[in-house]
């Protein structure tokens, strides 16, 4: 995969990885063995039929490849870019046992990008079924759920708290990894399915979950509000100026475009020597964004080692190439300030790895007498997030012991007719897992509403007579037939 040269890209906002062209995509597709019982498919959280779509690329029928992808994913152009493929599909690919695995993500991105350029959209004939469903949150979980319900004939409205849709894809992941036009392309698709998107709507405050069902006429609700609340460490000095969460840094730059201040009004107090605490995807984004904004030095502190770094391998490599300095096995104990109340540095501890903890990772332990100080005029926290408290505060929704929404195997919550999925149920995960949860919830909602995939069932049916003995998940042949040209 061609990329922009590290010295050039570390100062610009253009996308780092340049896409395949058709010839390169076909060359890569040729490497796939088209396994009869492929290992890659079960390793993809939404079980994309990987050999099927790759085979179509080999045949130069990119539209057919897109149709194969659309069976399972709504956002190929996005997942192809941001999935941690090395732990998922590509990590399981048989070719990868001896050579580099087939670049499944990049092929998927290639097809997704072609679909946006060519304006393909897999659009079945939609027979309205008279049911109204509300989706709270417009991240990947909400989008996927809305799309599937719209295809099933429901009138779907997405409510989003911010002024633009997309969730983390909009406010978190930066332009150089996921260009805004790709996101806009995928949203346009959603709108073509007839989904309404109402921004500026903070559910729980403007109206409650109960009101959606009792007063606003929604038959079911899906909650996909993400795990957005940034964590701090509760060490001295955290409220000094120049200390902020990665979410704030990324939101100011991606959603509010502070990098273009003062043409855009939102300011940013970027430092010259930036330290980011943490080494996940969020940290990588904060590090690489700081470089592009013009910081002179960008450092990463992580309490475990490089092996344990949870970021996508590609992001870590890119950050290293671009000149981010990594300090493994280091953790701050205190932030130091100057007379103006701004941050001037950190006091840190060296760590070593001890026994494995519950998550199976080795627990970092401080090494006595190995404290050191580190100068910094901006400190960014990227040490994870907690669930947003608003829906818990404003409804009787049952939460689990960590504060996430409790949901059963069908993603049903404790409130009747309310389903939930994505980061707000699992804790921070991945885009494709959130999307998978959205689709699973859509299927559960269809069952809950007694909507079956046949024209008969699209009419409102009282629950008791809704089933007709048909098997779950069968295809709607009527719909497919009507959708034919």
């Amino acid at each position, binding site marked *: 995969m061609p990329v922009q040269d590290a010295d050039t890209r570390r100062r610009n906002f253009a996308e780092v990885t340049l896409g395949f062209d058709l010839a390169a995509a076909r060359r890569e597709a040729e490497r796939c063995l088209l396994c009869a019982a492929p290992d890659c498919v079960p390793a993809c959280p939404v079980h994309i039929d990987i050999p099927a779509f790759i085979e179509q690329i080999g045949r130069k029928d990119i539209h057919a490849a897109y149709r194969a992808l659309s069976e399972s994913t709504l956002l190929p152009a996005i997942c192809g870019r941001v999935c941690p493929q090395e732990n998922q599909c590509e990590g399981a690919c048989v070719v990868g046992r001896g050579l580099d695995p087939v670049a499944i993500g990049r092929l998927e991105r290639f097809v997704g990008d072609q679909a946006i350029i060519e304006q393909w959209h897999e*659009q079945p004939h939609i027979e309205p079924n008279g049911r109204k469903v509300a989706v709270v949150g417009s991240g990947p979980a909400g989008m996927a759920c809305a799309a599937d319900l719209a295809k099933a004939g429901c009138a779907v409205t997405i409510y989003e708290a911010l002024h633009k849709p997309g969730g983390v894809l909009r406010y978190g992941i930066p332009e150089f990894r996921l260009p805004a036009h790709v996101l806009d392309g995928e949203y346009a698709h959603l709108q073509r399915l007839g989904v309404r998107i*109402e921004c*500026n709507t903070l559910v729980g405050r403007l109206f409650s979950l109960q009101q959606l069902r009792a007063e606003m006429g929604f038959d079911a609700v899906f909650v996909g509000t993400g795990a957005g609340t940034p964590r701090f460490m*509760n060490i001295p000095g*955290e409220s000094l100026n120049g200390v902020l969460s990665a979410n*704030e840094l990324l939101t100011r730059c991606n959603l509010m475009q502070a990098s273009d201040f003062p043409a855009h*009004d939102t*300011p940013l*107090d970027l430092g010259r020597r930036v330290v980011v605490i943490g080494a996940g995807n969020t940290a990588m984004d904060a590090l690489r964004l700081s470089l592009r904004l013009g910081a002179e030095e960008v450092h990463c502190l992580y309490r475990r080692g490089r092996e344990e770094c949870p970021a996508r391998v590609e992001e870590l490599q890119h950050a290293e190439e671009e000149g981010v300095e990594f300090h493994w096995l280091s953790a701050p104990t205190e932030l130091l300030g100057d007379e103006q109340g701004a941050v001037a540095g950190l006091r840190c501890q060296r760590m070593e790895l001890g026994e494995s903890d519950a998550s199976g990772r080795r627990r970092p332990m401080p090494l006595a007498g190995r404290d050191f100080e580190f100068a910094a005029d901006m400190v960014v926290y990227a040490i994870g997030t907690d669930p*947003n408290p608003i829906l818990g505060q404003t409804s009787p929704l049952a939460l689990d012991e960590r504060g996430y929404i409790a949901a059963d195997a069908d993603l049903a919550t404790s409130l009747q007719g309310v389903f939930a999925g994505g980061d707000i149920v699992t804790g921070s995960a991945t885009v494709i897992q959130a999307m998978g949860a959205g689709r699973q919830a859509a299927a559960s909602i269809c069952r809950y509403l007694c909507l079956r995939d046949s024209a008969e069932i699209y009419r409102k049916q009282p629950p008791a007579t809704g089933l007709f003995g048909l098997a779950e998940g069968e295809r709607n042949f009527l719909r497919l037939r009507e959708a034919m040209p």
Partner: protein
Amino acid sequence: MTTEHQQAGPAAAASARRFPILAREDYSDASFMLEIGDQPLARAARAGQFVIVMLTENGERIPLTLADFDPAQGTFRLVIQAVGKTTRQMQAQCHPGTTLYSVAGPMGEPSRIGHARKLICVGGGLGVAPIFPQARAHQRAGTRVFGVLGFRSAARVFWEDRFRAVCEELVLCTDDGSAGIQGLVTLGMDQVLARHPDCDAVIAIGPPVMMRACAEFTRPRGIATTVSLNPIMVDGTGMCGGCRVRVDERIQFACVDGPDFDGHKVDFDDLMNRQRRFRTQEAQALQKWSDSCRLHG
């Protein structure tokens, strides 16, 4: 492949809410009121809550307290002090017939109402309008409400009649004595307490120095004191942590845990320091905007 139903999609997808400005009133050369129409927001608003406003698509998200709301009319009001780039631009551009790019809310936990028997509501500067809905809600809940309002001078006084309608007594305090008594709001509080020593709660909204002074005034007297904090915010949904404040030695997010907090437990130095975070950028934005106004007349 497309059918009529599908072609109706994109049109149906456009949001219905528009946030029109219906009325405006200027209270001085620096403060003005906007009345905005939005049925869902007017219906949901509770005393103590705020909204996040964007004037234009490239604008900043700024928090403003709901100074009044009328569910029957479907309107709400904001009272704005023109202090920097965005608020001055609103002063210049927001007139009846125009719309705001976005208004999100109501945000924050509603104020606790009905816990006090005799309550002093203290408002100073940009805190005068925000305390009005609280005074009214308490009065409606059967609490006896006493008002103490601080202004720079008589020329800046507004809403005196509205406060008189909900307050049993109202003390105006001005820096120069041109209206009411001359002195700080703590002097006004002292006067109210002299007549009503059994007041059991205080709510103070205004600049941090004023809220701190009120909290220090009531601390030795043991009167429960609520303050409404105004740190710099971005999203207002608990997602960025920019609005974090220290209360009782713990980090709290003002937009979801507040904005009301126990005034005796708030670290005001911390709040004031954090409010200065963007001094340089704010001056730069204001300068650039003033220059462009001069250029275009």
